[in-house]
């Protein structure tokens, strides 16, 4: 055998003496949080190297806010200025959905890479590779929500809820985006390809945003549609945002919206972790 070169680490044999019973049988909560933060750090490194990930969250708020306000403003509310209190919270919710949709596609692409084999072989919490990117994605939601509100203000929107109310709506948008992202994370773990995730995500996103009260008052719709619009969780987020930003009030709708978000996370996060752990 060749000569032993001195290594900076202790010989692995030291660990061989470890009694397997001494090893933890599952990661602790603290370890899970640490591992999630490490995964979030990885995701931010990736974002920095692929700045195109920020195109949608910067261009979309600018484009959609101006476009919808000028197209529908006159027809729905009489003037663009009167439409803004209705549309800005709507756009916020829509932005939350479209930006968090990218989660699934990106995760699917990421999971096909070799590094995920290593993540699976490491003694780390199974949720960390999913929760890490979700946490880093909050940066994107923050940019999108902030820009949407700023564009609205630039167009003449004066939120009636004041600074606190606006901040509340802004925060709710980010929380909702993070929560809904778990639906797409789950899709990313079950679908076979990134294209499939993209397609299914679109099919979920369009009905959820357009069959809501985001752009038009629910009362203007036919009865059967109105019924769906009223149970659509996006409608609750939109109404809650309106209550916060326009009225500065924490209404029951805010409670329903938060409860809905919690329910989405409670259902889809465990589903995502389960299908991720099973996947090759």
């Amino acid at each position, binding site marked *: *055998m*060749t000569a*032993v*070169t001195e*290594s*900076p*680490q*202790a*010989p*692995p*044999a*030291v*660990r*061989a*003496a*470890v009694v*397997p019973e001494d*090893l*933890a*049988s*599952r*990661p602790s909560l603290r*370890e899970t949080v*640490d*591992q999630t*933060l*490490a*995964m979030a*750090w*990885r995701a931010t*490194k*990736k974002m920095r*190297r*692929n700045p195109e990930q920020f195109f949608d969250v910067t261009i979309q708020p600018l484009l959609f806010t101006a476009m919808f306000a000028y197209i529908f403003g006159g027809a729905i509310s009489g003037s663009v200025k009167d439409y803004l209190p209705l549309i800005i919270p709507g756009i916020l919710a829509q932005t939350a959905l479209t930006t968090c949709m990218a989660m699934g596609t990106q995760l699917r692409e990421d999971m096909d*890479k*070799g*590094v*995920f*084999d*290593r*993540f*699976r*072989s*490491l*003694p*780390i919490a199974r949720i*960390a590779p999913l929760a890490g990117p979700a946490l880093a994605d909050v940066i994107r939601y923050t940019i999108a929500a902030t820009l949407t509100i700023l564009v609205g203000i630039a167009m003449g929107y004066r939120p009636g809820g004041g600074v606190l109310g606006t901040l509340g709506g802004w925060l709710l948008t980010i929380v909702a985006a993070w929560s809904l992202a778990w639906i797409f994370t789950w899709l990313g773990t079950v679908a076979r390809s990134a294209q499939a995730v993209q397609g299914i995500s679109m099919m979920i996103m369009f009905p959820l945003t357009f069959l809501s009260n985001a752009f038009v008052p629910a009362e203007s719709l036919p009865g059967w549609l109105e019924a769906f619009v009223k149970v659509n969780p996006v409608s609750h987020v939109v109404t809650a945002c309106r209550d916060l930003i326009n009225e500065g009030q924490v209404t029951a709708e805010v409670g329903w919206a938060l409860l809905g978000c919690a329910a989405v996370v409670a259902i889809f996060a465990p589903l995502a972790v389960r299908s991720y752990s*099973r996947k*090759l």
Partner: protein
Amino acid sequence: MNDTLPSPTPRDDLAVDATGLVKTFGRPGSSVFRAVDGVDLQVVRGEVFGVLGPNGAGKTTMLSMLATLLPIDGGRASIFGVDVVDQPHRVRQLLGVTGQYASVDENLTATENLVLFARLLGHRWPAARTIAADLLERFGLTEAATRQIKNFSGGMRRRLDLAASLISRPPLIFLDEPTTGLDPRTRGQMWDTIRELVAQGSTILLTTQYLDEADQLADRIAVIDAGRKVAEGTPEELKAGVGSSTLHLRLTDRTQTAAAAAVVERALGEAPVLTPEAGGLNVPLANADGAGDVLIALRQAELSITTATVRQPTLDEVFLALTGHHSEPTENDHQNDHETEEVA
């Protein structure tokens, strides 16, 4: 090499203990493919165990099951006595896995990769950075530390991948085809690195397609074919079946093949193997010096040859000797038929 851990009872000295491992792909009823079909594997602590087999033999699948990456469809397996199915988290703490395709992050730099894995394994930031720097130096990657992996050569990726597997200083290391696709020089470096690990007392389970690699590194070898273990033993024991080298002969007159075979058998006391192309003979030799005796015997029998080559037995020849068929399925099945009889 096995003296690092004296064993009180026979089973306690095993790093890997698997019995009747089965992995099937495809749905029951339709065409079920048994990628691993009842393999037993016992790896003693401190040894290098080689799993030798052609592409698609089920080597990687077997390793993936042992590393908790694939569910086990049949049989049972334990790592240092910890059950792989019941205690996956504990098993993962005992293992370092280096995949066939480097499992590092393409978008991160070498340092970032190692820092990430060190952080995931519970090291604080400063410690993670120190570990990363130390490992990069040890693997000769310091100069490439700030380069993204997508700009790395194949050999550099493998080295970084191996470095990443060592962060937790695992007592057992899986190396899945560590040198496939590497040029000879890089391959030699990889072998040296693996020998260093062995010298430090790590147990290594290695898969390879190359007989010489298993020969160079492994204390014991299991030969896997179509999901089954066809042989197990030390490199010497396995090669005894095919000789340490092979003399390949081609006769000028192919009709004299049988006569030549008889001459060779008289000279060495062992029958040669007829090669698929007519007029060719493969003569297994206990050592290369035997080639001279064969050539002299042929000359005395006035049998003329066009070529004579001495080389190490290939994996294919070991396979042929062990299984009676070639390691890679050939289009001409009849070849296999007529060769099966040659092998005892």
